[in-house]
């Protein structure tokens, strides 16, 4: 047989095994693998020992590392096994898919592809791309590839569709793997999302969104229907994945001819994807070229492509399709990958959901189910859950019974998982999840040799270091930044972003504090292991910004406490991670809703209010922040009353400080409804007789300052604690709460001073002795200078008249001040006409 086509299912262990077997039988002279031809040189690395799957080919535009795509390979990927076989047998390997450079080139000049160029192509490609931004547009779908900085770094799980860079592509491309099936899932533009080399199938993920990455816009009409889904449905399977497992993987004998035939039948009836046509035209072109020199050829590609490759097509038609494409310069390298990234749940475009299971299927030759369940028992034992061999036996029996009940030839992943859940996990979801994480997905991390060319993240960092004139040095040195200067601001952001990536090149120095918010001090020290972290970090994104954004989002999702999220929010501001902001806000909202401790909520509010009021939050969704802040305040108001009962002295102090913070924050918010809500809550609190003295006094003061209590009422309340019915400790706390921190205020606030003065004068002579110690306790905490000033004010004349004078303002002169005032405050000041 001169040439053979192996239509495989991407990441299908059964296909992988079969391909190797067939290759050994065929002994081809050359192997063609679906993949980016620019990576041909990298095949040699497979021979050395350093490359351990899972690894991914990373391709990126040489001039813009932000545009990149990944082609992951696991040990059970048929492509990987085919390449391994070829390398071991010294058979040359060529990748023969459409070069990635074309996509990059197209992206740069999206319009260069003349529609006329391809006669006959149904549904011109043009309409497809273009929905997104130029950057993404050109990209063929199934090659995920988020090429755009935005998308690449895109926070995971953001369904790309709404993200500028990513034109949410429905990624139907997936269709082509035999496995086909539009990878529906996984909308996330995660860093990883970008990369599926090709449609890898995996239908079970809900998602529906697009893969970031390119791709014809969501409206793309000509999508081949899910071919495997159709085959599976015809065979009576509701889940195409299981059909594959039963019919192909479990039999272990994929009949490549039969698959090709089935695909031919399906493709005849299905709409063609224009991108597929272009790719296949290129593949045929390469194939023709190879045929000139070789007889015995093996071709490994997604099953979907097989019919197109075997079909007779005139050379000039293919040439016409490929004409006029511009090729961009791209660079390829190997990067380590993980099974977690390969699994769709961590945001991989069209990943497989159970790489660990596939790995097991691929590596274990006999007793698949018992071995798996023994491993599951091992995972549970490692966590201290007693799991006996009897459990394994019973789980195996149950898995087999389930398979029989469902009429399957062998227990599959669904059966073993359910059996493990029922027998070994006692129905505990945490244990089930543990097995899913450790075993079904697996935690295997790939490795690449050290001499591998640098990853784009490292290049991006080097470029930034150059423009910012910051040299990595192993010696420690200090760095003083003045954030009013643009370059220093950018330096600060870079350092903050690197810290987010777990790369503490700069540590903020404790140094001088309080010298103004525009000053930052850092201690810089470059450590050699940062290079490794950069490689690890490259799975988050290809630029520092994108990677830091993705990382921040991941951390926001994983955060367990409110404080963590508030910290992240601050990081987002400092590092200017605008893209991460909405996700962090959402996490904040979530944590706030779940945090039952109102003190935590109160502690979180002031920072938010400050940000909202003063923060120059570039690219920030201020509306989102306002909503979150408002809902936080509402939660505080709902929870405060129940948190204010039966407090110890320490707790009372905490509550008082919290309320002070919230009160200030509320005044910063300048929202009358919220202010009203807060004051109403405080008012209702003030009426509670059981309230600790400290917050009670404080509340009275707050309400008095806010003008919610008239002086007579304040005097009445001031008097109450000092009456007979009040225990002295409560009275002392009350007075402290009312007056504390107000030394300077008493000097300047005549109304307050008058109030206190009158009240003091009102105290009956015989009660004064009792009151004195309480007052001493409060006034004793003031500065001596303040105390003297208060004394002088009380003794001296009052500036009562001044208030009357203040009423006559020369409006014209006052108006002249406003522009300067506006410049200082950074906001426009308007004069209300009605006054």
């Amino acid at each position, binding site marked *: 047989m001169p040439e053979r086509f192996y239509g495989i299912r991407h990441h299908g262990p059964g296909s992988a095994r079969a391909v190797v077997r067939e290759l050994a039988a065929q002994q081809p002279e050359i192997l063609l693998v679906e993949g980016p031809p620019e990576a041909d040189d990298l095949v040699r690395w497979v021979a050395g020992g350093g490359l351990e799957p899972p690894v991914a080919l990373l391709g990126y535009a040489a001039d813009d590392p932000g545009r990149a795509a990944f082609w992951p390979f696991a040990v059970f990927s048929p492509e990987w096994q085919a390449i391994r076989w070829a390398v071991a047998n010294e058979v040359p390997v060529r990748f023969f898919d459409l070069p990635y450079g074309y996509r990059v080139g197209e992206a740069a000049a999206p319009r260069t592809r003349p529609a006329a160029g391809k006669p006959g192509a149904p549904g011109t490609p043009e309409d497809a791309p273009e929905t997104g931004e130029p950057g993404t547009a050109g990209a063929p779908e199934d090659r995920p590839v988020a090429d755009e900085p935005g998308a690449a770094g895109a926070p995971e799980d953001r369904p790309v569709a709404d993200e500028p860079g990513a034109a949410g592509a429905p990624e139907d491309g997936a269709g082509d793997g035999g496995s086909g099936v539009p990878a529906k899932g996984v909308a996330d533009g995660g860093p990883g999302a970008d990369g599926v080399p090709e449609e890898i199938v995996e239908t079970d993920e809900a998602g529906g969104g697009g893969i970031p990455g390119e791709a014809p816009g969501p409206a793309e009409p000509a999508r081949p229907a899910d071919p495997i889904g159709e085959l599976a449905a015809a065979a009576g399977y509701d889940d195409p994945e299981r059909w594959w497992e039963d019919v192909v993987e479990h039999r272990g004998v994929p009949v490549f001819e039969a698959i090709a035939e089935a695909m031919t039948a399906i493709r005849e009836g299905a709409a063609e994807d224009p991108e597929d046509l272009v790719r296949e035209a290129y593949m045929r072109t390469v194939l023709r070229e190879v045929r000139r020199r070789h007889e015995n050829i093996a071709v490994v590609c997604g099953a979907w492509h097989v019919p197109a490759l075997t079909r007779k097509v005139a050379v000039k038609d293919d040439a016409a399709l490929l004409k006029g494409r511009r090729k961009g310069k791209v660079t390829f390298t190997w990067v380590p990958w993980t099974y977690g990234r390969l699994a769709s749940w961590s945001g991989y475009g069209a990943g497989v959901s159970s790489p660990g299971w596939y790995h097991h299927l691929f590596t274990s030759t006999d007793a698949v189910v018992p071995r798996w369940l023994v491993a599951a028992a091992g995972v549970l034992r490692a966590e201290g859950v*007693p799991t*006996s061999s*009897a*459990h394994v036996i*019973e789980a195996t*029996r*149950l898995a087999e*019974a*389930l398979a*029989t*009940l*469902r009429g399957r030839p062998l227990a599959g992943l*669904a059966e073993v998982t*359910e*059996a493990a*859940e*029922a*027998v070994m*996990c*006692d*129905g505990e*979801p945490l244990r089930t999840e543990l097995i899913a994480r450790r075993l079904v997905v697996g935690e295997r991390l790939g490795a690449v040799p050290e001499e591998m060319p640098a990853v784009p993240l490292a290049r991006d960092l080097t470029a930034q270091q150059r423009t910012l004139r910051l040299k990595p040095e192993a010696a420690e040195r200090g760095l003083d930044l003045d954030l009013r200067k643009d370059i220093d601001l950018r330096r600060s952001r870079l350092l903050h972003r690197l810290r987010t990536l777990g790369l503490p090149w700069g540590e903020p120095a404790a140094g001088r504090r309080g010298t103004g918010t525009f000053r930052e001090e850092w201690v810089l020290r470059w450590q050699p292991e940062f290079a490794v972290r950069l490689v690890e970090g490259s799975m988050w994104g290809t630029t520092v910004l994108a990677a830091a954004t993705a990382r921040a989002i991941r951390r926001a999702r994983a955060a367990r406490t409110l404080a963590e999220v508030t910290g992240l929010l601050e990081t987002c501001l400092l590092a200017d991670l605008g893209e991460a902001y909405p996700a962090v806000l959402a996490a904040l*909202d*979530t944590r*706030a*809703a*779940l945090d*039952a401790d109102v003190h935590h909520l109160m502690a979180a509010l002031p920072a938010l209010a400050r940000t909202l009021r003063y923060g120059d939050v570039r690219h920030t969704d201020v509306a989102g922040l306002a909503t979150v802040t408002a*809902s936080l305040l*509402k*939660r505080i108001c*709902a*929870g405060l009353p*129940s948190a204010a009962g039966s407090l110890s002295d320490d707790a009372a102090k905490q509550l008082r400080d919290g309320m002070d913070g919230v009160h200030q924050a509320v005044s910063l918010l300048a929202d009358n409804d919220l202010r009203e809500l807060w004051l109403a809550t405080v008012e209702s609190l003030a009426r509670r007789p059981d309230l600790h003295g400290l917050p009670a006094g404080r509340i009275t003061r707050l309400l008095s300052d806010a003008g919610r209590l008239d002086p007579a009422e304040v005097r009445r309340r001031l008097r109450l604690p000092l009456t007979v019915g009040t225990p002295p400790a409560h009275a002392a706390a009350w007075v402290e709460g009312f007056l504390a921190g107000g030394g300077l205020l008493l000097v300047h606030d005549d109304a307050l001073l008058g109030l206190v003065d009158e009240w003091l004068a009102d105290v009956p002579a015989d009660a004064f002795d009792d009151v004195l110690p309480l007052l001493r306790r409060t006034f004793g905490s003031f500065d001596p200078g303040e105390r003297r000033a208060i004394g002088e004010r009380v003794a001296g004349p009052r500036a009562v008249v001044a208030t009357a004078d203040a009423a006559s303002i020369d409006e014209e002169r006052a108006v002249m001040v406003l522009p300067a005032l506006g410049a200082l405050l950074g906001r426009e000041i308007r004069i209300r006409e009605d006054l």
Partner: protein
Amino acid sequence: MTALRPHAEDEYADELAQLAAADDRPRPPGWRLSPQAVVTYLLGDGAKITPKYVGPRRLIEVAVSTLATDRALLLLGVPGTAKTWVSEHLAAAVSGDSTLLVQGTAGTPEEAIRYGWNYARLLAEGPTDAALVPSPIMRAMRTGSIARLEELTRVPSDVQDALITILSEKTLPVPELNTEVQAERGFNLIATANDRDRGVNELSSALRRRFNTVVLPMPANADDEVEIVARRVAQLGASLELPEVPAALEEIRRVVTIFRELRGGLTEDGRTKLKSPTGSLSTAEAISVITNGMALAAHFGDGTLHPGDVAAGILGAVVKDPVSDAVVWREYLETVVRERPDWLDFYRAARDA
């Protein structure tokens, strides 16, 4: 029939007969139906067989397979997730008899699980077969049917352990008579236990190992739950002979929405996180809130279900702990209910409740 509530095998006798007639798959020894037919009986076939349980198919498949492998089945779930309901129907479908039932309580004695004695006879005749009073489980072993044990975790630990021999050796020794009762093929045990009451009498690991555990979840989506509530409310209304009240699907949907949101700690639109109250807010509670509201509307109202009729019931279901749950409910009212324009009536009613 005048029974307030007929047994499953009587109420659905027609369906069971139909399934048995059409069932040509192999039946495990002692089973009335094949495992596949049992699954169909529980989940319905979309035509003649009504669904008894609305939920994930795989759970029922695991449960039925467990019974077929002669392992005992433990149904776990918070109150109101149809544990007892499922166990009754499983027993009815597998052995045609759901009455071999032991209700577990803190006072359940060992005799309820093994056997007791008719003391009059014991005194008169000494220990004989005739003086022996078999427990439902012993009778199930003799006849090869499914026995049911409700609320297993409420049973004292030493009594629970009486099950170990029965489940592992499938035999029940009677030392007084120097005999034993060996289980006929087809015997098995379905126990139910409540998640939230764990710790009351945690199963010993030796016993635990004899059970396969199936956790029955809350309904997965609002439409399922509305369907469950509406169907059960209609059935209950009919059997309790409540005056006819127009099917208030809107109110049912509202109650279900509130329960789901509070239970899941997230609004249905996925935008607002909520605190969850301490109660379980099960579907069964939603059913009783609605039934209760219909009774109120029929007897004391104008015959239509208004928000006011269900508001008090919801409040009672949500606020189980007067302090923390009240906060949860208030927060929910103010941040969620109030923002929904078409829920204004309900908001007012709930505030007054």
